[in-house]
């Protein structure tokens, strides 16, 4: 079958690989900025996966003039994943913006953007009052 490698669609393989690469990046990043970039990459992987879903059988745009007769509806790309991903992109942008804003504020308080020193100082503050 066209587009399939070992039973898996090519549109699936790339996002899955990208997803796990970004997950690996999140696990190994020592820098918070890198962690945020990896999270953005993860969002991109998920969005790509969803967009691939809508275009598996055919990628004819789902926009027609009113009253057009469609012979075979299965030839049209599924518009739902596209609509949902538009929302997901907006949410992703908003959340990333908050994330970066918070990081900016944290940088002013901790004078670092590395996870380890920041965490060490935060846990130092956390010790119960004596």
């Amino acid at each position: 079958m066209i587009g399939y490698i070992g039973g898996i669609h090519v549109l699936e393989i790339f996002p899955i690989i990208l997803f796990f690469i970004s997950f690996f990046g999140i696990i190994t990043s020592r820098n918070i900025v890198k962690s945020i970039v990896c999270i953005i990459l993860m969002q991109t992987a998920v969005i790509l996966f969803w967009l691939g879903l809508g275009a598996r059988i055919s990628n004819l745009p789902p926009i027609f003039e009113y009253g057009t007769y469609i012979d075979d509806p299965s030839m049209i790309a599924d518009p739902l994943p596209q609509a949902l991903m538009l929302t997901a992109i907006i949410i992703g942008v908003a959340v990333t913006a908050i994330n970066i804003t918070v990081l900016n504020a944290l940088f002013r308080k901790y004078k670092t953007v590395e996870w380890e020193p920041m965490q060490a100082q935060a846990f130092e503050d956390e010790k119960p009052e004596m």
Partner: protein
Amino acid sequence: MMISQLLPFFVITPVLIAVFLYVFFSLKIVRIIAITVQAAFMIPAGWLLMSARETDVLVSVGDYDGLLGIILRADLLAAVFVFLTVFIFLMVGIYTYQTPYDRTKRLYLFLIFLLEGVLIGLFLTRDFFNIFVLVEVSTVVVTILLMYDRTRRNMFAGMMFLMVNIVVMQMYLFGLGYLYMLTGVMDMEGASVVIATMDSNQLALPYALIMTSIASKCSLLPMITWLPKVNSLTGSRFTIAAIMSGLHIKAGVYLFMRFQDVFGDIGMDFFLVIGVVTAVAGVILALSQTEIRLLLAYSTIAQVGLIIVGLNLDYEYSRVGSLFHIVNHSLFKVALFLCASQISYLYQTKNIQKIRGAFKQTPLIAVANIIAILGIVGAPLFNGSISKYFLVYGADGPLEWIIILINLGTILVFVKYATIFFGKPLTKVREEETLVSDTNRRGVVFALGAMCIVLGIGGVQAIYFLFDVPVTLTFGGYMEKIGIFFVSVIIAVLLYKYVLAKRTFLSKLNGLNLSFQKICVSIGIFFAILLVYIGVFYG
């Protein structure tokens, strides 16, 4: 008017209250109106509950047919959660209402009521993508609440919370995409119908992705070390901790139930084990705490573990016991946090070891606090005893004993907590009269305490009313549980007095802090184990 047409307003009303409060906050009358509207909101919530007892209330937003639109559906379970949410937020609203005017409090109340709308939305919606959006909104709201005091510790905690939640929600969205690819629907009912005809093997990846994200929302193992800390270390705001522990974490449990239903109850044994381990770990970590909020937050984890055990026992009574325990736990945990707030204000410390003689200092709050404690430990005639009685119904053999031991651990935690009531104060204590809006706050904790007793005495009827499941409580069985309870109390007191009070080996656990990377690794491992488990046992 049909109640179904009102369903979207259940989500919109709290948001409107939030905006109204934010814009006109400086006027005292506005806060009274907001509380009145919130109180009046109990009426439609009650109406929804009564209607849902007869038949599911549903509305398709935008009037689309069938599975095309976004469906809001209130079955009995959702209606109970909506009612509980409205009630708890009313209590918190009354509790916070009369504090002196403070510019920062404006945003605080706005966020609190916004969170109410989001939680109600989560309980009512049946659309997978809606759940994603609402969880993201709640994550942002909670993050801002966590950072509220702008201390650097809380801001760091808030950022950890935000980033971990973004990662797990990306896993959810990925799993959802896979599920959509397999089923072609975004609606829970539709998906469960399609999934029933499918092979479990195909579902392994979406199931593992979605359930990993939901499990981290319920702060199940391995996520337990950070969520309580993040949730409870919110500066001086006990009310946020109360909402987080009492209600927000239950939204995770609710989603867990819904998704288990959608996937046709695969992976029950896995979550049974996870529930037991979470409960045991929660008890041990709670015992190691000296900070009053952390102790309560970790005890929440233990109770959530117990609830997850009950839900996965595959026995009607246990499931219903778990559901009832969710309601009960919300009531007594909110009461406990609010009482702890009063007591720690008087003693000007949050360290349990420094608070002594609270019973003498503030007898009324102490009484309400003790009622809540009796509720959570499952004392006879209190609500916790009824829910725990049914929760263990489906457990037999070693599992029953493990649950009894977990309850013994809970009793031990609250024996430690109860030491604050006895002895003489070690530090200077503020006068009780300095408590702000004394009557309101006492009223709230007593109302919650009263609910614990009412639901304890009328527990069987309450279960029938709330979940429409007729249960019978045998006299002999209940007496046996009472016997076990009293033996547990004696063992717990002795254990505390002669072992725990003198040794500090548990306090080493206090410093257990996972870094962001390690949390992500633990989430990855959880996902991998779940995936392999489903692949091996259901493949």
